[in-house]
Every structure is written in C-alpha cells, then in structure tokens.
C-alpha cells in the first residue's frame, strides 16, 4: 500500500556541502627577552595556507586543512596581545606541522633605565 509520494525525489535542498569542523589548535605562549613566542599545532598545512592577522591587539590565526585521507577541518584561534606590537615585525615559521610566531615586544614595554641626577 505505497502511496504515490512516499518515495519522492527532491533535489532542491541538496547542495554539495562539505561540513568542516573548526577546532582550536593547541598553543603554547612563551615570553622571551625581546619577543613573545606563540607555537600552535597545525598539522598538514603549507605555510601559505595559514593566515595570521593582527588587528590592534587581536591576533588571529586561521587555517583550513584538507589532508588527503583525513576529514577536512579548520583551525581558528584568537589571542589578545599586548598593545603596540608591530604586525610588520611578526616572524612566522612552519615546521613539522607546528606554527611558530615571534612577536617583537614594543620598545616602550621594555624596562628602561632612568638616570637619576643629584642636585
């Protein structure tokens, strides 16, 4: 007793859509003498695929990973960094699936010696 529209083809809603899971990459943040070092686990990318941007004090790291044989996924994470960090001076290195960013500390933040004059 199958009614005529029990099985009905309807492709109007069908779109070739790949569901991409977005994850927070695991990171380390280290403070060195002149820099902050941010290291993030971003396996299976090329350095060109990683986007790093600095908007005032908001550092954003984003990347889309599409490794053959694994499900595609996206990485995204934001960090609030010290004001005055120069985006031009951020150095990025990608090796063994780990992104390393070196953010030079602004000059003003370094301790400065003040000459005390007597008299």
């Amino acid at each position: 007793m199958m009614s005529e529209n029990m099985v009905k083809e309807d492709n109007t809603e069908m779109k070739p859509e790949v569901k991409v899971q977005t994850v927070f990459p695991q990171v380390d943040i280290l403070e060195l003498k002149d820099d902050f070092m941010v290291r993030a686990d971003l396996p299976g990318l090329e350095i060109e695929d990683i986007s790093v941007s600095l908007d005032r004090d908001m550092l954003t790291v984003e990347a889309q990973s599409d490794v053959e044989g694994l499900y595609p996924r996206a990485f995204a994470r934001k960090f609030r960094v010290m004001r005055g960090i120069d985006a031009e001076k951020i150095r990025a290195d990608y090796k063994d699936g780990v992104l390393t960013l070196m953010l030079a500390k602004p000059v003003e933040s370094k301790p400065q010696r003040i000459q005390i004059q007597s008299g």
Partner: protein
Amino acid sequence: MFTLWSDIDRAIFGYPFSNLLQNKYSAGSTERNACFVHNCRMNLSDKGEYFEFVAELPGLKEDDLELTVHADRLTLSAKRNVVNPEDATVLLSERRNYEVHRSVAFPVNVDTNKVEAKLKNGILRVTLQKSAENQPRKIAIT
C-alpha cells in the same frame, strides 16, 4: 589475539595502563617530562591495491616515530618532547608531551616488503601494498 584490542576497546577503556600513566603524570603535573597517552587522529583506507594509513602527529620528527608492520597489522609508537627555549617564561602551555601507541588491523594481509612511510608537516602517511593473493582482479565479461 592481538587485534581484539581494537580501536573500539581503546575508545571504551583507553590504552592499557593509561590510568597508571595519567595518575603518575596528571594533567596539572609540573614535571618537565610529563607525558600522557594521546589518541591521535588517524584513518585507514582501502585503495584497492593498497591500504593507506594517515595519522596526524604535529611536532614530531622521523626519529620520534616507530612503525612496525606485520602481515595483518600496523603498530605506531611515537613520543613527543616539547622543548622550550631556556630563558623562556611560560605563559600558556597546552602543547603537551605525549605518547602515541596505536595499532590498526588490516582486513586482509599486506606485503610487509612493500610498505612506504612518509612524514611531512606533521602528517604521517603509510602505504601498504596488499599481498599478491589479495590483489583485486578485473574480470573480463564475455
């Protein structure tokens, strides 16, 4: 039977003795070489003539990995050691030292002499040729 300790078991019970390991080096451990057992993302796919095994292992070098292949299974052991520069002050540390111990069983035997493994950008890719009697054969239709 080794393959009984499958991924399903692992999902339920974890790696054997992982409790011991994790108690000793718990998440909040300040010990420098603290380790925990990590289930890395991995996939095994059947490509007809060969199997392809892909695993995500960021921050590892070739020397940190140990791969053993048997006719019916592949065993992966790895250990990551995160090294910080000496004068660094750690503000956030999420990238932990970890150990990986995984084993995958193949549905059919592979030729252990025809295995290739590559590690690039934190992705391990192993191709394992199926043994001669398990190769797919095209049937001519007459």
